[in-house]
């Protein structure tokens, strides 16, 4: 399968491991990621907080480039980028006037024909393949699937999964062989874009997410957004210090978990780039493997 690819700024830098793991599983699942040439940043919170037109125009430019490249569907692995691209697409589709103004600003016409997909959407389509190729090393690994605020919301934009009790990540995780836990904070916001400007809020919000996952018995949290990852991973040290340093909670990108499930080499999945070491997860996998081998020998 061919699909357009909008990495967004973080996948080139702070969330490099997300990009690496994504590339790795794409290869394993026969997906060809076609990066949009010369894409620009979606503008993120800073654009939509300060200039509505800009927040539509920046994604529109990228969508236009994708259209020129004949990409029917584009994957935006970052939930925030996904939200901006999908919102812009809808704003243009819904309102003829906006569409006209955007075309004027871009100085080019375009059809707004490119569909935007989140990683949850894309992998939901592939659960069959994942299950087929799964090597089952994740058996009994308990993970908390964290959607964050924007992966399935607002429903008018996403039109995918249930905005209040979603199940797509759980289904993907199950296909990859792991066991999702029942928990309470799957949709609560982690503090998103306040990572730099209001760290205290991020710490407060991310902390309750980590606590809830821990309480539910999760061994790792699976995320589908670089911002969520950075808040839960990078900030976790500070949080754990306040919480009397309980066991650190590894935070895995969905692509990393799927990669592990497919039996890919952890080194190719960028696991070493995390602040919270995912070693406990790897140890668990090894233990499972050993057990299985034991059983085979016996």
């Amino acid at each position, binding site marked *: 399968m061919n699909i357009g690819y909008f990495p967004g700024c973080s996948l080139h830098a702070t969330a490099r491991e997300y990009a690496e793991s994504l590339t790795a599983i794409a290869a394993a699942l026969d997906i060809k990621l076609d990066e949009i040439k010369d894409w620009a940043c979606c503008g993120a919170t800073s654009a*939509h907080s300060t200039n509505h037109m800009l927040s539509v125009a920046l994604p529109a430019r990228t969508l236009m480039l994708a259209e020129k490249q004949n990409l029917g569907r584009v994957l935006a692995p970052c939930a925030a980028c996904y939200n901006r691209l999908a919102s812009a697409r809808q704003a243009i589709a819904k309102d003829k006037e906006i569409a006209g103004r955007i075309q004027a600003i871009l100085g080019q016409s375009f059809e707004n024909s490119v569909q935007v997909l989140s990683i949850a959407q894309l992998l939901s389509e592939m659960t069959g393949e994942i299950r087929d190729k799964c090597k089952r090393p994740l058996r009994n690994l308990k993970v908390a699937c964290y959607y964050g605020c924007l992966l399935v919301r607002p429903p008018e934009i996403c039109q995918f999964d249930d905005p209040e009790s979603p199940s797509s990540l759980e289904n993907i995780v199950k296909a990859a062989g792991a066991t999702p836990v029942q928990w309470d904070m799957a949709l609560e916001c982690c503090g998103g874009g306040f990572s730099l400007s209001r760290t205290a809020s991020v710490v407060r919000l991310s902390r309750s997410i980590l606590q809830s996952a821990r309480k539910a018995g999760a061994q790792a949290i699976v995320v589908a957004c670089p911002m969520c990852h950075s808040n839960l991973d990078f900030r976790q040290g500070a949080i754990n210090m306040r919480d009397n340093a309980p066991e650190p909670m590894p935070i895995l990108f969905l692509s990393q978990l799927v990669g592990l499930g497919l039996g890919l080499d952890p080194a190719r999945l960028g696991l070493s780039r995390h602040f919270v070491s995912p070693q406990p997860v790897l140890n668990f996998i090894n233990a499972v493997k050993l057990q299985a081998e034991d059983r085979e020998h016996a």
Partner: protein
Amino acid sequence: MSAEHSSITSPKEHTSARPQQSLSSQIQNATGLDPACCYQCGKCSAGCPMANEMDLKTHQIIRLLQLDLDERLLASEAIWMCLTCETCTTRCPNQFDPAAVIDALREAALKKVPGRVPKRISAFHSAFLDQIRMHGRVFEFGLVASYKLRGGPLFADVESVPSMLSRGKLTFTPKKIEGIKALRRIFEQCATEKSK
């Protein structure tokens, strides 16, 4: 009580129709949402992750807008506190969209009372957008540097730079996108776009 004071503390008197230039009609034009459609149930504030930190809760923001108390509203920190997590919008029983209204209010505040916008937040947004304008993409290292230069808290987070570097998460050398000229034009055009 001075006239100025009373204009802040009591709802502005409207004659029959809402005046065109009032903040509420301006926001309605920008978002297509009529503030009168909010019936002040508070469900938005109940679910808002930032409610505890906001000086005005989400439904109160809409309330002040209904009353056209623009000075108090635009100067409030609360509108900058919103994470645009869309919880309120997803759950509003009246199909209102507080997140979109707050975005529009921020835009209005930047235009009308730029001096009242919290420094570190406006510094962050400016730094962020500057990155895009300069390179087409955001390079975190440049972003952090520029943010600090613009008055973001100076020492916080500096200790993390080396650890980021060691994990290959920061790049020093920004690359410009090819269409940077066209992109800058988009910025210019959007800056001059009058809200409809």
